[in-house]
């Protein structure tokens, strides 16, 4: 089957169209990732791990070896692969619940140990797969299935700013950034730099992507983009937070 012209080479055509809801951001992030894999020419070396969350739908998304792990456990599984086979390029793909709630201890410890893996985390402000409960990233006042009267930060704390946290506990050789599906060119650059950081063997690399969940936000197309471009981007500042010092500079 011939690939549509805009489909990354590393995508698995047989599993397209993908199974995310219409208007979902996961497909956009995976497109940026696919293009990075193509451009870096690493399809033969990548081991891809997806979490349980809507990211699980990507278990057969690429023509690369892929592991569907448990909710929150993608970081340690891929760390295990990397430690045993340092020549592999390990990508852990997860949601905000998977990375910042149940898997937060793994994220913190992998970052602290400066594991040479790449974590890509999709921030959609909710638990998508389980039907729209509050996530660590749910915005103040935002209504979800478990914050039906709006998120009360007095009771539940403030939304997690993951990249800022990861940046604070990683050494200068790590790469940390927050991108958004509203700026795919920038997001792609970030993912590419993250993968290069891993390939250079300098340190941990982490990219959070602000994403879309129209299904659980219950928004139409216009409101969906408005939410990510305004509300989310206001609270979660988009940009590079930590860039490895260049080797030459040492």
């Amino acid at each position: 089957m011939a690939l549509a012209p805009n489909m990354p080479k590393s995508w698995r055509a047989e599993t397209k169209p993908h199974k995310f809801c219409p208007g979902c951001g996961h497909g956009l992030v995976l497109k940026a990732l696919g293009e990075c894999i193509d451009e870096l020419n690493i399809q033969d070396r990548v081991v891809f791990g997806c979490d349980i969350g809507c990211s699980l739908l990507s278990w057969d998304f690429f023509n690369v070896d892929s592991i569907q792990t448990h909710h929150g456990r993608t970081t340690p599984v891929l760390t295990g692969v990397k430690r045993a086979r340092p020549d592999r390029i390990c990508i852990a793909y997860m949601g905000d619940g998977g990375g910042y709630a149940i898997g937060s201890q793994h994220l913190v410890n992998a970052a602290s140990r400066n594991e040479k893996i790449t974590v890509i985390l999709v921030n959609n402000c909710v638990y998508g797969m389980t039907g729209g409960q509050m996530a660590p990233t749910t915005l103040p006042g935002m209504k979800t299935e478990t914050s039906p009267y709006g998120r009360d930060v007095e009771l539940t704390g403030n939304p997690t700013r993951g990249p800022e946290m990861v940046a604070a506990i990683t050494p200068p050789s790590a790469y940390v950034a927050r991108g958004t599906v509203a700026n795919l060119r920038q997001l792609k650059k970030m993912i590419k730099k993250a993968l290069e950081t891993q390939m250079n063997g300098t340190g941990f690399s982490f990219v959070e992507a602000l994403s879309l969940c129209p299904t659980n936000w219950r928004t139409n197309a216009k409101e969906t983009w408005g939410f990510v471009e305004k509300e989310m981007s206001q609270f979660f500042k988009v940009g590079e937070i930590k860039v490895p010092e260049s080797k030459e500079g040492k």
Partner: protein
Amino acid sequence: MADKPVKGEKRFFVTGNEVVAWAALAANAEIMYGYPITPQNEVMHYWTRLAPKYGRRFLQTEDEISAGFTTVGGVLSGARAFTATAGPGNTLMQESMSMAEMMQIPTVVVVQQRGGPSTGTVIYSQQEVTMTCFGGNGEGFRVVYSTGSHQELYDYVIKAFNTAWKYRIPTFVLGDGYQAKMRESLIMYDPEERGIQMVPTEKIVGASGVPGVDREPKHLRNTYNTEEELYKVVGDLAKHYWQVAPEIEEYEEFDCADAETVIVAHGVVTRAAQGAVKELREQGKKVGHFRPITLRPFPKKAMEKAIQKAKEILVVESAEGQLAKIVKAEIYGSDIPITGYFRPGMGITAEEIVEYILNKG
């Protein structure tokens, strides 16, 4: 604060998850701790909508390890506290429930079983029997009620709080994805109006007075220095457990008195088993059904009585022999052959059981 959540007796037609939330409210549960997982989510969804109206509280934790341990903390401080989970979440709660077993902490956990192992399915199974009865590095000092209808979900969630607090044993209500998601009619009631007294809770820590002055301080532990010390503690736990077990055990039996074939099934599968017995009896077959309601402690004596005339025992379950393993251990010494109709993660109908029994001759 609004008054009682449930007044008088009212018929409802709702999902099992909604039933669990209402039952916990009616039982005066003060706080729920939880983490989202299908097919349990709506327990939390209803609880978070209803609880503030009745002055109750909720905490969404970062995972089920935390949900289990926050429940332990809530219970130790004297709150009638509970959590609800399923599948991989149940796995993560085993650590805290092991602590609850050791330290006699009256936690209540509602489990809506889903398909496994691993993430499996979010739909239905009876594959969490072994884990719920015997999980953790413990001895299974737990009470596990396996419900088969929405009415039972309501009744046993209320009862679970009383069993837990009366006997100081961690108590589980074992439902499943079908019961969680299905709509069915039931009668909700205020326990008190039915003469059910809620067993009072106790501030195991944090009671009033200055510790060491007005009262003894509480020094609770789960670590021991010598084999003898631990042996004594576990021995006391065992003694307590087996002493109260006969009061806790519950079961139902259907046409077992003269039955040559006894079907053993629990939870929602009891319905299929009851249907099969009815059908096979109409065909003149001597078939009966024994249903343990408490999987822990298991109603061993009642089962032994139910199989007195049996020439064979057929264990029917939506798992690969988890109930069968318990049954075999419990009736050890009997020479009645035991076989199984095992459908891990699959629903089971009465027709299927009838056909299986007729075909196997």
